[in-house]
């Protein structure tokens, strides 16, 4: 790889385009770590938010009115308030109470900023996922559920084996859209100093004063990441396509 | 050579048209004289609707020639505006503009395309709506009208351009059986007034009664044609016979 790094050094020396993340080993590792942190953040949030969505949609279909109202309230609160303030509320607000006292008498937060970012972003995106799955479930004809019940499935089993697989396919396009938003929203973790891509890039451009270069690198990396994700999800959509179902 | 009314108003010669690798028209020729009513019948997918769209330059042709009043339709230098004011077209799905009332639908093109005086256009539009028996529906939106009523507005909308020929593309195919008749009555009145008409239709009774000439198309060619009495009484081609036996 050394020739490549050298080329970037040469690029800097001849054109002034300063991409330290390629020719400087320290910046390269910082950037790569940030990239990995971002990927971890994205993957964890995607998985967790989908779980929140499935469980929430299940609860929304339950017979208990109180439960439905609670989930409905959760959705409305998280949809209609700024994600950044939600993050501050969780990390600085709730986080200040969830602490552990060390032997030397100091208290430190029990939950790291990284975990808070995952929790908050997943709960936020989960609110949207609940609605997405719910409309997917509503689109499954009631006769299909009746048929399942007639065959002896109970509600949970009908949900797992029949309703969810159908609803998931119907929900996929909207889900993709929301997960793309989630991927983009992981940059908010910057605000609570999670060393993800934006955060390390900020450090790098502060140290090297190469703002335009780093901004462009950031944009390209994110657009490429989202593009790859969309490509993958489109493949998934195509692979799961069943004749006669879906959009 | 200027066109004179004793020549065919529409002259179609050896027209070919493909969509990708699928040949829709494979050498179609026919003439329609002034004030003639020509009906095109045939199984679906035989290229009838495409032929009508070619006459109006909505669809370009691959080869051949279409003359409307002596003017080559597929001449790249053609003034499409001039062509389309001469050729009116009514569609199966009516295609009224849903955000405008019946009266506005009829008035729009004369005002915006022909730049005619609004008051004159409005008076004419009201007369046309009366002619298609829609007095009282002037300010109704398309969504408030039945299919048959919408289709009659669409006919009035085309007539507002004072066309020399009217093309009807399966105009009753999307209608309820009860409302088919009111549209057919309107078309018959037009034909009786001497309007040149080309119809793609599945209404065999109507075609037999109204048409001067029947064309039967199948798989992109005109299989057989003739005056209706002869055509229906003695179909010569086995494909025509099979089609008629299925539909009558």
């Amino acid at each position: 790889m050394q020739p490549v790094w050298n080329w970037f050094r040469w690029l800097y020396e001849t054109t002034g385009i300063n991409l330290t993340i390629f020719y400087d080993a320290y910046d390269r590792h910082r950037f790569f770590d940030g990239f990995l942190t971002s990927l971890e953040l994205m993957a964890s949030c995607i998985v967790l938010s989908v779980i929140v969505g499935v469980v929430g949609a299940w609860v929304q279909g339950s017979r208990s009115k109180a439960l439905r109202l609670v989930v409905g309230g959760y959705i409305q609160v998280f949809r209609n308030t700024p994600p950044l303030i939600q993050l501050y509320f969780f990390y600085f607000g709730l986080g200040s109470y969830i602490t552990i006292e060390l032997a030397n008498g100091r208290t430190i937060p029990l939950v790291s900023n990284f975990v808070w970012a995952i929790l908050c972003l997943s709960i936020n995106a989960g609110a949207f996922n609940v609605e997405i799955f719910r409309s997917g479930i509503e689109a499954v004809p009631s006769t299909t559920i009746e048929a399942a019940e007639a065959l002896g499935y109970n509600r949970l089993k009908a949900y797992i084996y029949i309703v969810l697989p159908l609803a998931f396919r119907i929900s996929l396009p909207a889900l993709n859209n929301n997960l793309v938003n989630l991927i983009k929203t992981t940059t908010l973790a910057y605000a609570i100093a999670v060393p993800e891509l934006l955060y390390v890039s900020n450090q790098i451009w502060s140290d090297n004063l190469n703002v335009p270069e780093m901004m462009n690198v950031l944009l390209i990396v994110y657009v490429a990441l989202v593009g790859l994700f969309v490509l993958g999800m489109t493949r998934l959509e195509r692979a799961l396509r069943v004749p006669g179902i879906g959009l | 050579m200027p066109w004179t009314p004793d020549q065919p108003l529409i002259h179609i010669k050896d027209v070919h048209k493909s969509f990708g690798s699928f040949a829709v028209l494979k050498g179609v020729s026919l003439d329609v004289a002034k004030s003639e009513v020509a009906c095109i019948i045939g199984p679906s997918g035989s290229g009838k609707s495409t032929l009508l769209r070619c006459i109006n330059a909505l669809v370009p042709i691959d080869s051949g020639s279409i003359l409307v009043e002596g003017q080559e339709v597929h001449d790249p230098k053609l003034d499409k505006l001039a062509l389309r004011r001469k050729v009116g077209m009514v569609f199966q799905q009516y295609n009224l503009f849903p955000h405008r009332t019946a009266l506005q639908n009829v008035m729009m093109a004369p005002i915006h395309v022909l730049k005619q005086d609004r008051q004159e256009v409005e008076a004419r539009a009201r007369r046309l709506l009366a002619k298609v028996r829609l007095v009282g529906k002037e300010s109704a939106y398309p969504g408030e009208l039945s299919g048959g009523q919408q289709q009659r507005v669409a006919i009035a909308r085309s007539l507002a351009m004072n066309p020399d020929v009217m093309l009807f593309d399966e105009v009753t195919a999307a209608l309820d059986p009860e409302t088919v008749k009111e549209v057919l009555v309107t078309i018959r009145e037009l034909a009786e007034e001497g309007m040149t008409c080309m119809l793609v239709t599945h209404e065999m009774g109507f075609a037999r009664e109204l048409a001067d000439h029947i064309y039967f198309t199948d798989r992109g060619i005109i299989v057989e044609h003739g005056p209706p009495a002869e055509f229906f009484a003695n179909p010569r081609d086995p494909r025509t016979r099979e089609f008629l036996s299925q539909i009558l």
Partner: protein
Amino acid sequence: MPVILPLSPALNPARTEGNAIRFFRGRRGIIVSVLVLLAFGIPAAHAQAAPGPLSIIATIWKWTPLIASGFLLNIIISFLAMAIGTVLGTPLGLAQISPQRPVRSVSWFVTQFFRNAPWLVLLFYAMLLLPFNMQIGGISIALPDWLKATFGLSLPVMANMSELVRGAVQSIPHGQWESAESLAFTRRQTLWMIILPQCIKRMLPPWMNLYAILTVATPLCSIVGVNESMTLTNDALAAEANHALLVPMYLYLLAWFFIYCYPIARWTVALERRFAVKG
């Protein structure tokens, strides 16, 4: 090979998300939402009972005028960014359906690029790379931070608007184009007189949804140093230096946004349902 595929079926998240809100309507909805907000707050407030609840309310009240002035800036930014984004995004969306292939490809790429880029990164981009004043003719116009941030936020709005316009135009049946063409309307006339008027109704609910998303994104400006409500709330918290204030103050600011955005969301759903019934 298109790396960035358009998300057309998911174009309108409001449409797919509408159902759950429906069940959750009116006053009951607000009450429960407030209860959920409180449910997060109450245990926390109890956990650290040092200053009495009354003094907390008094402190919040003391800072309310400041927070309100910041919130006003959030609203101004949201209005301006929405206006800029709509004005830029509409022609971009129309360019996406242009008969000229190069125009189509370029506008598609621009749209996808700004749709896929994170809002915060675009905000940084605008803040760090826009000059602090602009020379137009001989006049130098100062570009304050909040205006630069507004421009940064209007970029993703533009891209989303572009997709809305493209989707709406493409959702109009082909027959409308065909019949307008047969009546000798030009392409331009067809677009402006026949197609776009029909699009406006379809675009209104997702457009309002976009506005709500933009509004809840405006606190991002605090990260790049604009003195909007989030920045001022953090200033107030710093001045008070009291841990017990953190949860109530953040909840308070969340409530401001909720009270502003929730009615918009309700209205969007109502419009959507009305248009859905009329067709």
